[in-house]
């Protein structure tokens, strides 16, 4: 899937939220999207999922089956979780048994007969994840999937995403909390300054004050410099 000089804004004459974004979404990889609040992460995910068309530029090669879990699951719907997910499985042409399988994996089985508006935020979020996973998607787009999840699911989710990626899905995840840090092979995209760059942002630097006898100061500065740190004696 390719993004070619894509730009997007929500209204005509509004400032561009994203501008001149050229990207390749590789198959079978997990991509973690980072950036500060309001940088345009959710907008980028909507463009990738196909919720919104680009204002300029071109998006090509989106897989035919895409799963999308928005940041806030729309829980204000008059269904039980089971009825809702049953409908979503039918819409996606997936067998109804998939609902039970994914609910089991995400620890959601006991809540399937709960009405959606009665679910807690984390449980509603799980319903959103299950609906996105129902049809073995070639592209999975999760907006803040770890937010509000219980510790068990939070620990299990990275491995589950890795499994989906190993089966060929492109998995794109926005994450504030660094839950994918331990997972090997995760690509990182930074959204900043209305564009997207691959790789981590340069790490922030901190100043550490070390008080030592004056006679040892020169020696310590020399050793720290040898270790690659910026050090000076005051």
């Amino acid at each position, binding site marked *: 899937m390719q993004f070619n000089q894509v730009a997007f804004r929500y209204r005509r004459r509004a400032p561009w939220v994203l501008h001149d974004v050229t990207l390749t979404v590789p198959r079978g990889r997990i991509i973690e999207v980072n950036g500060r609040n309001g940088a345009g992460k959710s907008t980028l995910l*909507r463009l990738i*999922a*196909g*919720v*919104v*068309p680009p204002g300029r530029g071109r998006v090509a090669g989106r897989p035919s089956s*895409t*799963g*999308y879990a*928005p940041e*806030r*699951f*729309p829980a*204000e*719907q*008059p*269904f039980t979780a089971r*009825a809702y997910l049953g*409908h*979503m499985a*039918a*819409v*996606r*042409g997936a067998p109804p048994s998939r609902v039970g399988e994914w609910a089991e994996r995400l620890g959601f089985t006991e809540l399937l007969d709960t009405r959606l508006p009665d679910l807690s935020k984390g449980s509603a979020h799980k319903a959103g994840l299950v*609906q*996105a996973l129902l049809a073995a998607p070639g592209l999975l*787009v999760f907006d803040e999937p770890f937010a509000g999840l219980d510790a068990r699911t939070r620990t299990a989710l990275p491995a589950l995403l890795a499994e989906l990626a190993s089966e060929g899905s492109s998995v794109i995840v926005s994450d504030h909390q660094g839950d994918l840090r331990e997972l090997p092979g995760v690509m990182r995209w930074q959204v900043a300054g209305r564009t997207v760059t691959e790789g981590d942002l340069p790490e922030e630097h901190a100043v550490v004050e070390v008080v030592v006898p004056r006679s040892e100061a020169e020696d310590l500065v020399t050793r720290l410099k040898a270790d690659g740190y910026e050090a000076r004696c005051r």
Partner: protein
Amino acid sequence: MIAAMRFQLAGYARSTRALHPVLALALLLAIMFSGPLGGTPAQVRSGALTTLGDLAALTFPICAWAARGLLDTEPDAQRHIGVVTLGGWRAMACGPITAAAFTACLALVASAYPLAEAVRSGIQASVLLPAVALMLLSALAATALGALTSRAIIPSPGWSVLVLLGVYVVDLLLGLGPLRVLTVPMIEWMGAAGRGASTFTSGLPWFALRTLAWAALAMVLYARLRRTRP
């Protein structure tokens, strides 16, 4: 697409939104049918036709309201999931088609009593069928107006209701003057139905064409606006 339509209809039926237009329609029908359509069979035939013409115009805002309510039952984020799941065009068409099916049912329910009375009084099928077609065409145009005033297009509920009722009132007012060709010809079909079966039947193709053209233009506008308003 059928499964998505069933999902939307199920959500609408389970919400209280569906009750609003149904109650409004029940109230309208109770007022309109509080007395007999006529004494003699000839009066009933004439009364039934006049009533169907009036109903096609009076149910218009109720059907538009029902269509708007059906489309607005789906939360914004669920609509976004639908766009991803179904694809842009099918997701865009799914809601209005479901709403058109529902408003067609409302129109048929509304016309059931005068149709039954007309059949009992011996009215010809050649007059009845155009009257039913007119009810359905009116429901179709109303659905297009409901779609154009749904939350995806007009996020403010206050403005949305104002536009819906405003378009209906402006349509009726324009129907009285030289710009009537631009309208859903409600004033004209009410007048034709009141003047008798032959006037109504001969005018129907023109009424149908204009109503269809109005609905088509409204849906094209809706589709265009939805491209940037998922």
